[in-house]
């Protein structure tokens, strides 16, 4: 008799069919899955494309592209792993893992989202080639003045009948020619391909397209309509009324509460480094969950809370009343 058999000595055993149990469970769960699938199907809201973005929100598209040139968008100043913008990475005290990770997905937002595609397109557009030449030949200070003035002008931009935009006149240099060319490129659908292929025939990496669209307002607005934003517990939601990743409720919860929803924060944790703080907390909690068997107090709660009496109520009752069919442990 080994330790296993000694453990069960004196324990009442009953017949059991493990294969039958699994088969019944499989049939029952499959029936449930089929029922839910036939009744509710599954979510599949179409993704946003740069083509659709430029068509439906041309001012937002041009404003974002201008921001990429000015270096004022989220991507342009993101820091690691996309670029080396100083002091952009999230830190907590001496902890700076984002910086330690380094720049491994390099993204030059101005060049890759705007200037590169325009340069490709300028081979068949002399006016654009001249504008690009004027822009690249200007000082950084002059470029900044053009972009700043144009960004202010975009606040009063109007969409014309052809889907282009008109901006009140001002000293914008070559920027309007560049932006209208990029807008036409995007509205034709060509920019999707130019950002996506990155010079390769096969490509399944959507980093640049997504970062560019993420810098704009339309995608965020669409996400807000589908209650997917961070302050809407978005990470655990799904489009429509479908259940999302509800198992991420605790992760999402922390973003809604102090100090992670506060600029002032506490002990250096605030909205600015909420991602790092929440990941650290969830890592700690997951470790604690795994180590519960060794943590006094946490491991004792099941003894103090009488849920186990409910779970084993039937077998305890049978034991007390001397239920029939009791069989001794099988010798092996």
């Amino acid at each position: 008799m080994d330790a296993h058999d000694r453990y069960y000595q004196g324990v009442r055993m009953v017949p059991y069919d493990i294969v039958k149990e699994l088969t019944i469970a499989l049939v029952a769960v499959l029936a449930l899955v089929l029922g839910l699938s036939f009744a509710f199907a599954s979510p599949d809201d179409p993704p946003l494309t740069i083509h659709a973005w430029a068509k439906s929100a041309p001012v937002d598209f041009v404003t974002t592209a201008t921001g990429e040139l000015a270096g004022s968008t989220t991507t342009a100043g993101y820091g690691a792993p996309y670029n080396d913008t100083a002091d952009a990475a999230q830190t907590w005290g001496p902890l700076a893992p984002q910086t330690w990770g380094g720049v491994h997905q390099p993204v030059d937002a101005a060049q890759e989202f705007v200037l590169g595609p325009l340069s490709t397109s300028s081979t068949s557009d002399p006016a654009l080639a001249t504008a690009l030449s004027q822009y690249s030949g200007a000082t950084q200070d002059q470029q900044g003045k053009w972009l700043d003035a144009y960004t202010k002008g975009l606040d009063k931009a109007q969409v014309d009948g052809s889907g282009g935009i008109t901006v009140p006149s001002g000293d914008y240099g070559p920027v309007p020619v560049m932006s209208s060319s990029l807008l036409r490129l995007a509205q034709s659908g060509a920019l999707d391909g130019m950002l996506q292929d990155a010079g390769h025939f096969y490509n399944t990496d959507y980093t640049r397209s997504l970062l560019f669209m993420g810098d704009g307002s339309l995608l965020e607005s669409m996400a807000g309509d589908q209650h997917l934003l961070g302050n809407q517990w978005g990470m655990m939601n799904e489009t429509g009324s479908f259940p999302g990743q509800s198992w991420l409720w605790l992760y999402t919860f922390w973003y809604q509460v102090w100090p992670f929803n506060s600029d002032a924060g506490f002990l250096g944790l605030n909205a600015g480094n909420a991602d790092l703080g929440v990941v650290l907390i969830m890592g700690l909690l997951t470790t604690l969950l795994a180590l519960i068997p060794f943590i006094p107090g946490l491991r004792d709660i099941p003894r103090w809370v009488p849920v186990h009496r409910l779970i084993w109520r039937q077998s305890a009752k049978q034991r007390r009343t001397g239920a029939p069919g009791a069989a001794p442990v099988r010798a092996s």
Partner: protein
Amino acid sequence: MSARADANVDRSWTGALARWTDRKLPADRLFPDRQPAYVGSWVYVFGVCTIAALMIVVASGVILSFFGPQWWHVSPQGRFFNSLHFWSVQLFFAFMVLHLWGQYFMASWRDGRAPTWMVGVTIFAISIVTAFTGYVAQQNLDSQWIALNAKDAINSTGAGAFFNVLNFGQMYGLHVMMLPIFVITLVAVHVLMVRIKGVVKPIDFEETH
């Protein structure tokens, strides 16, 4: 003379593994025909339901991956199998969480079963990552936005240097290959650990039984 009884084979690693298996997991423990009477509670059902849901998740996922990423958007059959995958994942997590809470309130780590609990928590954590890679690989509006949101959390840890949630190819590869292998392997280990040690006795067993 059987090979097992041969002195040369007995000293081999294979022989040692065979003897360990015979001792720890004989056939009647792997496929038991009896179990302790106290296992007759509905709470024990959640574990096997989790495994059943996982089997449907894997089967529907294999079919989806066979026909490729466009199929589940453009054909009624693809959409249907996408729905099977979606709902089986929802049920997998529902049953797994119920199983986890059930095991917690039964303090199932008692009597030398802490490793079984720890493997279970590891399965839960890896399953969350597996599901997340699936959500960002859906190729719809939801996957676009949650990938953009989640990148900030991943990047803040430095993991964004090699785990790029905006890279569909990487997420899809991890979702259909590496992460499921981890989950399935650990579930197999978890079940074998339960079979080797047996189901833990109720709390206060001596008093109530």
